């Protein structure tokens, strides 16, 4: 009996390992196919622009509210620590560094992973299980090019722009709090906030946002494009798109920060 249980556990472990490795291999093939199709004609510019607007506008409201609250609350939570050694004048500078180096792209990525990633996963998953993708293919239209390439490019571009917008809204939120307590002017706030920001920080901000946008688009499309098991599969695709995107975003954050810090102290 005990031996049977061991064999069963070993079987389940081997099966899960096999399916995980297959998934990684298929994901890699999907990634390679994206770059092959990206530079191959035809280019669906109009669809890419439509998707960019769609993703951008769909997330704008949420980014505005979340970014503002993050900026406002971050200042509120940081003030007591700085107050204890009389350094509240450092708040704008602290916010500038925190926003541009980490918070802006990360908050944008987490919000859009939930909003856009799940949306792409569910949309493509639903198209897959209702044979709309097959219908596209038999109409001599390349569904990978039309659905995946356009969405991944759109997600990359729009999340870059959203991250810059999120930086602005976060700084606005933090200014509102600082202004209401310390009463400093907008000019002083901006001068102090940007005093510790360098070109490398802005550049990293954009690179991070682009990487997260690409990841969200790719994972959403991959999970949606490979959805199975009917409507249950659509839900699973949307769910996995969010979970896996967020996991990858944190991994990428960790790696990018290490690389940038290494460059910073060269």
């Amino acid at each position, binding site marked *: 009996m005990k031996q049977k249980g061991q064999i069963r556990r070993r079987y389940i472990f081997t099966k899960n390992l096999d399916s995980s490795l297959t998934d990684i291999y298929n994901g890699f093939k999907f990634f390679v196919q994206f770059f092959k199709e990206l530079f191959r004609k035809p280019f669906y510019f109009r669809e890419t622009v439509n998707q960019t607007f769609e993703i951008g506008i769909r997330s704008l409201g949420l980014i505005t509210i979340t970014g503002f609250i993050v900026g406002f609350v971050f200042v509120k939570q940081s003030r007591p620590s700085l107050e204890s050694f009389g350094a509240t004048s450092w708040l704008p500078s602290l916010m500038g560094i925190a926003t541009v180096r980490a918070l802006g792209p990360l908050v944008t990525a987490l919000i859009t992973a939930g909003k856009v990633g799940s949306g792409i996963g569910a949309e493509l998953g*639903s198209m897959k299980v209702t044979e*709309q993708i*097959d*219908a596209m*293919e*038999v*109409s*001599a239209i390349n569904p990978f090019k039309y659905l995946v390439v356009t969405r991944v490019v759109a997600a990359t571009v729009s999340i870059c722009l959203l991250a810059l917008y999120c930086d602005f809204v976060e700084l606005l939120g933090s200014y509102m709090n600082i202004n209401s307590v310390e009463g400093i002017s907008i000019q002083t706030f901006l001068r102090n906030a940007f005093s510790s920001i360098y070109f490398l920080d802005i550049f990293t901000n954009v690179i991070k946002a682009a990487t997260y946008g690409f990841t969200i688009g790719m994972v959403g499309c991959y999970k949606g494009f490979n959805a199975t098991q009917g409507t249950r599969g659509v839900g699973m695709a949307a769910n996995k798109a969010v979970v896996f995107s967020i996991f990858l975003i944190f991994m990428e954050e960790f790696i990018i920060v290490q690389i940038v810090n290494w460059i910073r102290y060269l």
Partner: protein
Amino acid sequence: MGSFVSDPEKEKLETVISIEGLYKSFDDLQVLSGIDLILHRQENLTVLGRSGSGKSVLLKIITGLLKPDKGDVYVFGKRVDKISLTELNSLRLRIGFSFQSGALYDSMNVYQNLAFPLTMNYKNIDRKEVKRSIEEVLDAVALSEKIYQMPADLSGGQRKRIGIARALITKPEIMLYDEPTAGLDPITSVEIIDLINEVQHKYNTSSIIITHDLTCAKNTGNRIAMLGDGKFLQVGKFDVVFSSNDERIKGFYNYNFIQ
């Protein structure tokens, strides 16, 4: 086992689809095991079989959506699993595929669904020409008034009709129907059957109709091919196929009519 060509005169006709020794499996499940098939120009061939017998897989292999494990599939003399994607796509424009659920694009209205294959494949096509083609196919499926409706607002039968209209928009020479009457009430089923026959006469198409509905098979197929255990059990005219002593065919016939 019946011959694949029931009428010797048909042999003189042009072959549009030819399949030899087709095998297809998914993991351990053998779905098709040695299919041979010939479809002649302007002929309607109905493939009958139980759910899960591999009927839809056959259509997907013909259109290059799935690759066969073994065997040769020729469409207009070209082997679909060996040609380049560009060649396959130009072949696909000569084939219309009507999906079981209609497979209409949810995010587009009827007009956009019908315009999509044209505008994507013929970059310089005139907007007036697109509109004219859409009006023509909508007229053929008798749904002209639904031109700006969304798929979600259409009934099951209307979705299938629009699916057929979308398949016809590129003026295909071959039509493939996957379960055209599945899930429809008897009256709508008869309307779809009439539409399939009208399409054949009006557009001079050759068709493969996949179904498990004997009424549909009897009224649309010039020939019937009975699929079971991954092979064609019998191929020929309806009466010839169902006069067979094969228990699987008899069972299928009795079950259908008892229902």
